[in-house]
């Protein structure tokens, strides 16, 4: 049986933030995750809050924090420090984030010719944030024969004034294509193939020349060029720098459907940080059983060939995600189950789960489902049956599993994940979580 001070279940932004924070504080951390998920699907920005009627993440944060049912009611003050901390952590891998809580929320182009609101983006996407000058044009540039980015369709969508709510869009939107060197026209490549090609210095050079040529052919004048988010993986900073140096217009990346390169980069940066801090990460380990003694989780079991692998632990951070991440599972008879501990879940009645329109801007009522916690992120019974007492003394719930957030409507998922992960690390790292359980004690 292996031993850890803290077992973190889930390797998304929330889980990895908690794990890195704890490992930095000297805890022996073991991250167990069923597989990769949220980070590989996400567009890689840090959405803290984009609530209609607000201009900045900070304003949205204040608005949401004022709702007692929202996770921000507890977490609001942790967002800024967590954000600052994360910037430092990922900077170690060359990943730079632009924008902050007081930055204006701006519409940035998406890969189907719409926009989405954003304020804090990785450097590679950040050039999309600046307001459009009256004479500025936007060039949509994609590789020929790439199924996840259709420049003509993107340009057509972005020409519509409705695509730029509350602001002026570019003066003109045009589409161009370039031929990626050595890629056959009909290859079934995805963004990752292209990114890996960009990591190769000589390929990168040739591709950037091809892009520059396509951009130049579209005519002179000020503007910016949107490229699908595939500018390198391991060497992304170098690719970005080369792109800026080579292209006649300021480039920015537009995130694509999974696998998402900006998300992968964030995952890699966090994984490296965890490794540097001495934490462990095991992917492919779905927790099968949790042993509880006297209200405390003492052990988790993960499947191993022929038997279970046991990890004794002093605390558990539950970062398994919501419905999309697999932390919540809907049953046939219309209940939601929390998949690791079977925690009680706060959810609307099955009849009221979904909106009539699949893409309803108000989102689905079911989005808000999740686990309720006390002030230390420990699970409680949402019906008040436990009198608000923690169901487990040493379990802390972080990220999308927390009840009360509407991540699609409020765009608050990254902020909640980061702040809750950071808070969990702080609570456990300083031994404040249980009042008596310190790391040293847990380690015994």
């Amino acid at each position, binding site marked *: 049986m292996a031993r850890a001070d803290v077992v973190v279940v889930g390797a998304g932004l929330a889980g990895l933030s908690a794990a890195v924070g704890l490992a930095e504080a000297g805890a022996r951390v073991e991250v167990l995750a069923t597989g990769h998920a949220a980070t590989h699907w996400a567009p890689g920005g840090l959405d803290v809050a*984009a609530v209609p009627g607000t201009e900045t993440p900070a304003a949205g944060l204040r608005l949401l924090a004022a709702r007692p049912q929202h996770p921000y009611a507890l977490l609001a003050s942790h967002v800024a420090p967590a954000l600052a901390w994360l910037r430092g952590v990922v900077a170690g891998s060359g990943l730079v984030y632009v924008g902050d809580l007081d930055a204006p929320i701006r519409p940035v182009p998406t890969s189907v010719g719409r926009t989405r609101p954003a304020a804090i983006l990785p450097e590679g996407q950040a050039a999309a944030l600046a307001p459009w000058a009256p004479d500025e044009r936007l060039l949509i540039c994609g590789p020929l*024969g790439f199924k996840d980015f259709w420049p*003509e369709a993107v340009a057509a969508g972005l020409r519509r004034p409705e695509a730029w709510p509350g602001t002026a869009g570019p003066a003109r939107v045009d589409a161009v*294509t370039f031929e990626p060197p050595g890629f056959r026209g009909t290859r079934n490549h995805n963004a990752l193939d292209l990114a890996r090609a960009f990591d190769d210095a000589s390929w990168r050079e040739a591709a950037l020349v091809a892009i520059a040529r396509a951009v130049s052919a579209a005519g002179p004048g000020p503007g910016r060029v949107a490229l699908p988010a595939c500018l390198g993986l391991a060497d992304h900073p170098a690719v970005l720098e080369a792109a800026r140096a080579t292209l006649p217009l300021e480039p920015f990346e537009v995130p694509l459907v999974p696998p998402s390169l900006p998300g992968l980069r964030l995952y890699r940066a966090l994984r490296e940080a965890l490794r540097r801090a001495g934490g462990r990460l095991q992917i492919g380990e779905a927790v099968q059983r949790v042993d509880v003694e006297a209200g405390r989780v003492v052990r988790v079991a993960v499947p191993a060939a022929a038997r279970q692998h046991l990890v004794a632990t002093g605390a558990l951070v539950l970062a398994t995600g919501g*419905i999309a991440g697999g932390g919540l599972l809907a049953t046939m008879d219309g209940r939601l189950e929390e998949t690791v501990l079977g925690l009680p879940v706060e959810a609307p009645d099955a009849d009221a789960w979904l909106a009539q329109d699949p893409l309803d*801007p108000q989102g689905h009522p079911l989005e808000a489902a999740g686990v309720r916690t006390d002030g230390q992120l420990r699970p409680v019974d949402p019906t008040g049956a436990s009198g608000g007492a923690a169901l487990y003394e040493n379990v802390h719930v972080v990220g999308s599993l927390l009840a009360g957030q509407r991540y*699609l409507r409020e765009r608050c998922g990254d902020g909640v994940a980061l702040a809750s992960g950071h808070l969990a690390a702080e609570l456990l790292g300083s031994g404040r979580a249980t009042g008596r359980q310190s790391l040293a004690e847990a380690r015994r």
Partner: protein
Amino acid sequence: MIPSLVDVLVIGGGATGAGILRDLSRRGLRCLLVDKSDMGTGTSGRYHGLLHSGGRYVSKDPIAARECIDENRVLRRIAPHCIEDTGGLFVATRDDPADYVEAFPEASAACGVPCEEVPLDELFRREPALDRSIWRAYRVPDASLEPWQLIEANLADARAHGSQAVPYQRVVGMTRNGAQITSVELHDERSGSLSRVAARMVVSAAGAWAGRVAALAGVELAMSPGKGTMLVYNQRMTDTVVNRCHRPGDGDIMVPVHLVAILGTTEIRVDDPDRYGISREEVMALIAEGSKLFPDLPRMRLLRAYAGVRPLYQLEPPADPGDVRGISRAHVVIDHEQRDGVRNLVSIVGGKLTTYRLMAEQTADAVAAKLGVSVRCTTAEDALPGADDRHYYWLGHRLAEHEHQGGGDAELICECEIVTRDGLERFLDEHWPCSLDDVRRGTRLGMGPCQGGFCTFRAVGAMARRGTRDGDAPGRGADDRSPPESGAADDAAEEATLAAFVEERYKGIRPIVWGRQLQELWLTTGIYAGVLGVGAPRSAPQALVSGVNASRVEPTPGGRDGQG
């Protein structure tokens, strides 16, 4: 586009209508077929996919059983490319009455349905997912039949014989001069324009909607539409059609159709063929019954639920108005001259997809007789277009073809169903302009586990390159930029297609949102709203949405759904 005068106007683009069009065209008549929606979007596109051997009717309705086996043989001959020769099984579960089971072979023989007993060890070897308490099994020549291709082939043959078929033309009025319908008014559902066509004969093959068509001619025709709900499983747990060996009931048939397996069906009377829902209870009841055949069903992933409305017609009023199972599946050709004094209107009601050709033949015979045409029917002898190699299709053909052509590396637009970029472009070349939904039926795009989550925007991307803006030439490369101002209207239309498509897929998912399918919905919704900014909230949320709504083409109620 709409001719002003034809010999025969056929109303309804299901299999029967298409069959009638083909039949009459081959007898030398110039015909027009119209449908209020696209072809095959009514009951034909919403059935379980079974080519009956007749086994299901041997004890209840021997005439129907005989018709089925005859037509089964005909279709295998004339439309093998629309058929997967799965074979069929009638199996006896613990719940099935022994006397019915024991009498089954004899009843089959009496109807001419080939039936042989399958030893149980052989049964479980071939179909290991079947419940082990099954105690008897018979093999019959059931098969799985693809409706859209079948309809398409019938229409193609009709076109080759000088007739026309035009979708999205709703019949909104008929002008009668005494006993004669002098003209029929059509509303173009897409452009909104009206046109008028005169026909020597009008044939209503509108199925469950036949009552409404008849009403336009001032004739009363009381249909008893029966809703049948079906569940689509993500993968096949059987390669053979499996029926319960008992009197037909709910949830007692599983049909492997292409990559999925379809569990059918319920039978609930509905008042309006355009308005019905599928309840979770109905779904659960189906699964519970189906589990008697395949005990793992509760753990298998459903892709969607859909329902079709059977065009049932009662000659006599029923004893129990709710009992639709009791109504005969037999078809009836109604000559409204004798019945209602309308000289040039014939309706065909009742029936089932397996006998569509026979129904068409009998209808065409009636029409031909009335028009004094003596050319006899040839639809049972001559193969349909596309049946050239006389081979059935098989489950792996699409993947095998893909591997053969691209070594698996050709660009995939729809990964679940293997629709390549070339395949999509080819379809668009042939059918442009068309809707995403046409693309779905023509290529199966969006019918897999993600229900279009990953491929829809790709297809829209490919369609955006097509030039409604600058002629029909597909645009490629750097220099086919269109002027910014001309595209806006078409972009809005694309947006509407996208929204309608996503919405329609969603409708089928809603009754079965649990487990992975809810997770999948969440993932795709997250991608659409979070990454792609479709339907995402924003500072001015109404802007985008009103943009969609303003130009939305309302999906024809009850259309668009189907097996995938």
